[in-house]
């Protein structure tokens, strides 16, 4: 539907009259007023100014109708401030005038939210319709994707990755693809995004309003109890490593805004996603607890016999595990250090019967080795 074709339904006109009977309207380029003495409506949009008798109101069409249906959608149908802000963001409402938007909405306006592509289009009455699909399916034929209509299905889609493994962190960049929500209302698109990426809209909205509350690492430490008290002893430099390990975009899409403290920024990349991360999550805290235990150990000097290639191979294996590329290494590609045959060969050659690298005991002083 283009701006030229815009008309108004009886419901929209009734709401418009009712609102003007109470007070004038000013919204998004539309200014309207009702003169009870004259029983006339004055409607002003950037390029047009009209004055209509009550009986003529239903003839409003084109650009002015577009402004009125836009007012109706955003004030009568999308009723909470947060949903309002999100829907406006989805159609770039702050950057474009109503007519320009209506023209663009005819073919659809795409925005990305994490791994979601959300497309807003206009229904005939100016109501919005939303489609959600995985960013990797942007060019896919919609019919080839599994169709969903219930926004809460998003919860199940987001529970496991493409390999069927559980995703404990819903904001990890491992959302499975192959599905589509072809036609959602404003209320439904909000619920679906909330199910895919819980609490991201509200935190984004708080940030937009300039009142995002950030709890930094030290705040998080101070709040812990029980077994998580242990994170209070995690050294500061380990927090830096933890943030780089866990909060990088390759692991979690949220843009990390928390630091060591308000005055002590972390050097690790925080990412550039649209939605923020306002405090260390339970995964980071649980990981921090493990690292706090491990960091209590003192370093020790070991002597290992390795060829230069073997040293590099160990580094390649750590990289492959850390980058999640183990499954990408082809079975017969022995040029890769993390190739399974290469790793098995190294183990045969360099581990003794107790699994010690180069036959070097972990605790040379005879200390009980719990790790094996």
């Amino acid at each position, binding site marked *: 539907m283009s701006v030229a074709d815009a008309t108004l339904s009886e419901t929209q006109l009734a709401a418009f009259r009712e609102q003007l009977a109470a007070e004038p309207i000013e919204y998004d380029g539309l200014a309207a007023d009702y003169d009870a003495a004259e029983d006339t409506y004055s409607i002003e949009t950037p390029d047009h100014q009209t004055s209509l008798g009550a009986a003529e109101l239903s003839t409003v069409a084109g650009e002015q109708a577009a402004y009125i249906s836009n007012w109706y959608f955003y004030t009568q149908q999308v009723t909470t401030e947060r949903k309002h802000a999100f829907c406006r963001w989805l159609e770039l409402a702050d950057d474009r005038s109503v007519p320009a938007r209506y023209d663009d909405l005819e073919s659809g306006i795409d925005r990305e939210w994490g791994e979601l592509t959300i497309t807003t289009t206009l229904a005939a009455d100016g109501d919005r319709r939303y489609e959600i699909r995985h960013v990797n399916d942007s060019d896919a034929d919609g019919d080839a994707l599994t169709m969903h209509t219930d926004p809460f299905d998003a919860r199940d889609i987001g529970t496991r990755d493409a390999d069927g493994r559980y995703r404990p962190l819903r904001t990890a960049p491992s959302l499975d693809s192959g599905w589509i929500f072809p036609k959602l209302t404003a209320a439904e698109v909000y619920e679906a995004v909330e199910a895919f990426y819980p609490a991201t809209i509200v935190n984004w909205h708080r940030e937009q309003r300039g009142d995002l509350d950030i709890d930094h690492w030290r705040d998080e430490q101070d709040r812990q*109890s*029980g077994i998580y008290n242990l994170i209070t002893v995690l050294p500061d430099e380990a927090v830096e490593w933890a943030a780089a390990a866990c909060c990088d975009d390759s692991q979690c899409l949220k843009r990390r805004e928390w630091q060591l403290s308000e005055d002590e920024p972390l050097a690790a990349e925080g990412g550039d996603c649209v939605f923020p991360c306002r405090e260390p*999550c*339970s995964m980071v805290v649980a990981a921090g607890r493990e690292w706090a235990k491990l960091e209590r150990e003192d370093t020790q000097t070991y002597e290992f016999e390795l060829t230069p290639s073997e040293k590099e191979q160990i580094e390649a294996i750590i990289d492959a595990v850390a980058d999640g590329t183990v499954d990408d290494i082809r079975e017969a590609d022995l040029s890769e250090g993390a190739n399974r045959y290469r790793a098995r060969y190294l183990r045969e050659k360099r581990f003794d019967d107790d699994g010690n690298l180069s036959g070097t005991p972990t605790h040379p002083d005879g200390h009980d080795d719990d790790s094996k």
Partner: protein
Amino acid sequence: MQSLVIVAHGSHLNPDSATPTHTHADTIRATGAFDEVRTGFWKEQPSLREVLRTTHGDEIYVVPLFISEGYFTERVIPRELRLEGWEPELWNSDGISADTATLVASDIDKEVHYCGPVGTHEAMTDVLVRRAESVTGDPEVGNGFGFAVVGHGTERNENSAKAIEYHTERLRDIGRFDEVKALFMDEEPEVDDVTHHFDSEDIIVVPLFIADGFHTQEDIPEDMGLTEDYRNGYDVPATVDGHRIWYGGAVGTEELTADVVLERAADAGADIGDAIARVRQRTNPATQVAGE
């Protein structure tokens, strides 16, 4: 506008941990009794820290999907939700009688009604009975059957055993089952020796747990001798020492648990109309067809 917030533990490792929470939220959502139903987790998203800010309501009811009063309901949840002025004494509970406390949550600067856990509500006894019916496939089950309510034990929380004893006593008072006993995983009387504790040939065993996981799917079936290896599964009923064991798994996965969540919110003042009756009908296998 009324909002219901169900808070639960969740898990970093087990995708089934949150399943009952979501299922009960869906059941309650379908009744339309609340304008919105939100879920929040200690280990999943949205976190307990951020769940209240996802709500839109003026009247907010928070119901912990936990079995007993203790560390989580008294300390972790109120702290994470930022309930100002919270102290466990506000529940004025003897360990199983927490009802509700109304406090301002500083995260949203609104009052919320913080309810006691589902596990200690009297309606949970009905859910245990419903599980007995569903695991045996007999809506009249009782006569000739023993019923074991299984709990973790007191190792970490003495109220955990109180909740088990409470429902055991109530089941006994109903008089429907020949014998009702409380058994524990880590203290006497132990679930390992379930057949020693019953004369009845048929024994229904239901853990008073919220979600299925390591304990209910691996430990308890193996400990009772239902199977050598949980990965191979087990029969229902399975024969052990000449007894037929009808093992029901975590009671919290029973659909009727949604009713207990509603009861908690209603006790705290939520206006839920006939939602309780509708959930009872909807989740009852005997009336499900009519209910649909």
